Each structure stands twice: as structure tokens, then as C-alpha cells.
């Protein structure tokens, strides 16, 4: 057997008499055999074959985070500010996501433990439960917004809310019904790539490429500093870096069975995912930029309104693509976020938690996953619920919850006893510190604008 960095710490002596082999182990071992075979091969396609086998968690987490509320935030950004500062800013937020998510992939590959499990074991239940409460509340709120997006997107096609929520729950059940991580991952990847549907929508608006290039080079025109701008900034950051992503990618890395040998390709997986997600995010901002002249505000944050508003500009087909994109974003994210919650729950209570588990052996895993989604879906059906504010709130809360979550990630990634020689290098620590400081300052500035408008005006805000 190979030994990972954690072996020294846990002092595990694998006595073959004590080892309990499960189906989960067998499935993962088959996946690892294929990876080992691909690694041993020589030839022009061997590296691509290996990359194909190892990609997944990074792409899924990035495209999964391009969820319903995120796409609505990008759409609101384009409609509110047009083409300018926010195009390169959105790309910057994905660079931040790469810095953060690389650490989770490295942690998962080195320790084979989920994020919640590591926090509980290393820092104790007191801090562990704080993290879990943050994750639980954040995930639940985000799940509600996914169903809002699905409801709004399908509403464009005349589907009633109950049918929209029901179809999302059926999709969730089908997605996890394979009881095999590999099959689930490949299926969801194929669906998640439809996130790029926003690229043809952007092309249908015939964007001014000179303005797009100018915006990327100069970061101009700049938006005025106002509370509205701050909310959009926070919403766009929250659309890219959120706590559930930390827990999901680390757990998925563990479930997939990545090891320290796979870290390099795990990084490529993460960067590839960020590039695809950034392309979709930028395309969404460009797609709704023509609405800038209509002075849309936060009140127009529902997905369907954007599709309807775009219809005169890009036709019924383009508007339908936009609405489908919102539905796809909500569907994929409802699966990844539910699974993130179920992984964390299983890690904390030490119950089986893997997509390789049959239902009979993973009752708690699948129950948490489904009950959470069903409750979130039911809430969306409550008449008169202020859905707009829930969407807005969730991305802002996600940004505010990130600094405490990042500090634990930062400490774990620098824990030599856990990580061995795979602790974060100096440059990664510098970048991670910059991300924490940036997120905290953005939150503080938002707080100042709300509770001390005079001080905010003194700082140049409106």
C-alpha cells in the first residue's frame, strides 16, 4: 500500500486482518487502476487520457458555482453597469476562486479527508460546529435561490412553479441514482458544460468588441461608488467564492480518490473549471449589457425578467436560451450544493458518505441530500415570499461568511503535521491572505454604507 502524508500523524498500521473492505472502496480502486494504467502509458494521447480521468471536482465546483443566483447577479451587473469595470472584475474573482480551491484540492488529495472532518478533528467540535452552522445556513439559503432560478427560468416557458420544483427534485434523484461517483461526475459534467449556453446568447446581442477589449485593458468605465455598486460587487464576489465550494471540492476530491500524485492535474482541473465558468460569467454580463440603457435595478433580479427583457433584442430563441441557461445553472447547483451538505453531514457524524454507496448503505447520506433540497423547494412555493431579496441576500451572506471559512482552510493548508511537504508555498499564502483581506474590506465597506451613510459619503460614496 502507498502511504500519504497523514499516515505519520494517524500512526495507522494497516493490519490486513482489521481492514473492512466496502463496495465504496472497490469502486474507488477500479477508478485508481484506470488512472495508474493511463499514467504508465506512453504516447501523445496518454496525458490527455490521464487528464480526462482526473478532471471533475474542479470543473464541477466552478460551473456549479455559476448557479442560478450567480448568473442572475452577472445579468444584473451587465444590465446595471453595461460593459466596463465589471468584466475584468469578474475574471479577477475567478482568479481568487482558483487560489482558494487549489488549497482544498491539495488538502483532499493529501489527507483523503473532507473539509468538515478535518476542521472537527484538528480544531475540535466547538469550531467545527461553527463552521457547520455557517455551511448549513449558507447552503440552505443558496438551495432556495437555486429553486427560485429554476422556477423563474421554467416560468419563461409557462411551466407552473409546482411543476418546476418537482422536476428539479426528480432531476436531483436521477443524478444521484447511479450510486457510482464516476458515472455521476461524468453525467453532471456533460450537463454543466451547458453553462456555456450564455456565450451564444452574448453573441446574439452583437456586442461592441472594441468596448469589450477596452474594458479588459483599462477596467473602465468605472462605476460610481454607491451602495448599489457595493451590493453588485459583493453579489459578484459571492457568485464566485463561497463556503460550500470549499467543502464540496475537498469532499469530491476524496470521493474521486485523488492522491498526491494527481495534484498537478488537479490544479489544471481547477483552472480549467475557472476558465469555463469565467467565460460563461463574462458572456452573461455582455449579454445583458444592452439593457443598460433601460436602467434596470436590483428589483429586476429575477431570471425570467432578464430573458423577457432581452427578447426584443435577441428574439424568442435567444431569450429561450437565456432562460434555459438559468434553469441549467439552478439544476446543476441544486445537485452539487445538496451533495456538499450531505458530504459534510456524513463527515461530522461519521456516517458513510460517498456517491459510490448504494442506497441501503448510505441512507443518511441520501436522506440529508434529498430532504434539504425538498425543504428548499417547498419554501419557494410559499406565496408572497420576497424572492428577490432572498436571491440578493444569499450572495452577500456568502461573501461575509468566506473570511472565517478561509482562515480554517489557510491553517489546514499550512499544517505541516497534516500536509507534510505539501503545505502551501509562500506565494500561495500571500495570495490567500490578499483574498481574505479583500473580502473582509468589501464586507466592511458594505457595512459602513448601511449603518454610517455619512461616513460612506465622506469616503466618496453616494
Amino acid at each position: 500500500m502507498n502511504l500519504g502524508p497523514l499516515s505519520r500523524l494517524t500512526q495507522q498500521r494497516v493490519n490486513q486482518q482489521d481492514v473492512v473492505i466496502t463496495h465504496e472502496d472497490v469502486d474507488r480502486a477500479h477508478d485508481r487502476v484506470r488512472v495508474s494504467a493511463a499514467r504508465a502509458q506512453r504516447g501523445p494521447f496518454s496525458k490527455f487520457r490521464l487528464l480526462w480521468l482526473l478532471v471533475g471536482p474542479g470543473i464541477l465546483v466552478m460551473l456549479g458555482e455559476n448557479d442560478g443566483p450567480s448568473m442572475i447577479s452577472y445579468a444584473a451587473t451587465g444590465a446595471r453597469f453595461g460593459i466596463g469595470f465589471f468584466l475584468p472584475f469578474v475574471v479577477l474573482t475567478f482568479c481568487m476562486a482558483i487560489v482558494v480551491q487549489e488549497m482544498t484540492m491539495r488538502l483532499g488529495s493529501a489527507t483523503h479527508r473532507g473539509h468538515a472532518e478535518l476542521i472537527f478533528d484538528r480544531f475540535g467540535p466547538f469550531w467545527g460546529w461553527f463552521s457547520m452552522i455557517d455551511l448549513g445556513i449558507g447552503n440552505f439559503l443558496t438551495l432556495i435561490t437555486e429553486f427560485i432560478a429554476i422556477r423563474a427560468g421554467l416560468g419563461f416557458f409557462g411551466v407552473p412553479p409546482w411543476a418546476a420544483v418537482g422536476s428539479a427534485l426528480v432531476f436531483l434523484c436521477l443524478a444521484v441514482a447511479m450510486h457510482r461517483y464516476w458515472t455521476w461526475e461524468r453525467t453532471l459534467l456533460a450537463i454543466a458544460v451547458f453553462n456555456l449556453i450564455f456565450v451564444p446568447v452574448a453573441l446574439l446581442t452583437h456586442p461592441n468588441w472594441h468596448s469589450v477589449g477596452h474594458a479588459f485593458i483599462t477596467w473602465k468605465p468605472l462605476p460610481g461608488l454607491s451602495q448599489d455598486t457595493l451590493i453588485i460587487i459583493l453579489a459578484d464576489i459571492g457568485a464566485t467564492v463561497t463556503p460550500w465550494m470549499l467543502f464540496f471540492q475537498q469532499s469530491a476530491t476524496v470521493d474521486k480518490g485523488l492522491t498526491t500524485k494527481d495534484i498537478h492535474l488537479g490544479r489544471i482541473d481547477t483552472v480549467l473549471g475557472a476558465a469555463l465558468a469565467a467565460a460563461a460569467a463574462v458572456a452573461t454580463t455582455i449579454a445583458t449589457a444592452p439593457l443598460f440603457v433601460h436602467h434596470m435595478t436590483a428589483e429586476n433580479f429575477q431570471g425570467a425578467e432578464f430573458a423577457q427583457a432581452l427578447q426584443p433584442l435577441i428574439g424568442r430563441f435567444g431569450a429561450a436560451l437565456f432562460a434555459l441557461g438559468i434553469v441549467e445553472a439552478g439544476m446543476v447547483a441544486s445537485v452539487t450544493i445538496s451533495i456538499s451538505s450531505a458530504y459534510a453531514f456524513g463527515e461530522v457524524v461519521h456516517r458513510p458518505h460517498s456517491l459510490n454507496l448504494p442506497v441501503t448503505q448510505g441512507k443518511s447520506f441520501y436522506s440529508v441530500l434529498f430532504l434539504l433540497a425538498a425543504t428548499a423547494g417547498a419554501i419557494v412555493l410559499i406565496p408572497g415570499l420576497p424572492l428577490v431579496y432572498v436571491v440578493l441576500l444569499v450572495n452577500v451572506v456568502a461573501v461575509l461568511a468566506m473570511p472565517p471559512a478561509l482562515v480554517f482552510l489557510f491553517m489546514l493548508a499550512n499544517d505541516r503535521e497534516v500536509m507534510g511537504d505539501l503545505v502551501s508555498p509562500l506565494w500561495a499564502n500571500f495570495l490567500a491572505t490578499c483574498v481574505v483581506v479583500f473580502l473582509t474590506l468589501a464586507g466592511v465597506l458594505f457595512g459602513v454604507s448601511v449603518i454610517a451613510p455619512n461616513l460612506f459619503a465622506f469616503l466618496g460614496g453616494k
Partner: protein
Amino acid sequence: MPSKDKGQSSITSTDQELVLSSLEPEQLAGLKKHLIPRRHLKGPERFVIWSLRIYLLFMIVVVIYQVWASLH
């Protein structure tokens, strides 16, 4: 021989050999029940964690106030 999980009778000895030869020890589901030893938090670390915890609670109140103000 390694033992099998309850209800795992379909796992063959070939499967067991495969698992033991291709997975790292910590990857085995059965061995994940071993806890990783607790780490003692230093003073500055505790300060940063508590500060960010207070920051989060305060900002949640701010967000709730902002939503309340927007609705009224």
C-alpha cells in the same frame, strides 16, 4: 484475509487484493473512523478566528437591517 463489511458478501478476494494494492490506507472507508489528533490553537490564531467570527455576526445583523430598511 481482510474482513468484509456487513452485506458485502459480493466482494471477492480479487476485489480485496485490488483495493489493498491500489488505494492508500487513509482512502479506505473503514479506516476513516480513526480521528486525526487535535491541534492546539495559538493565541494569535484564536484572536483572528474570534475576530472574524464577531465580524460575521455583526455583518449578518447589518444585512438583516439593510433588508428590513429596503422593505420599509
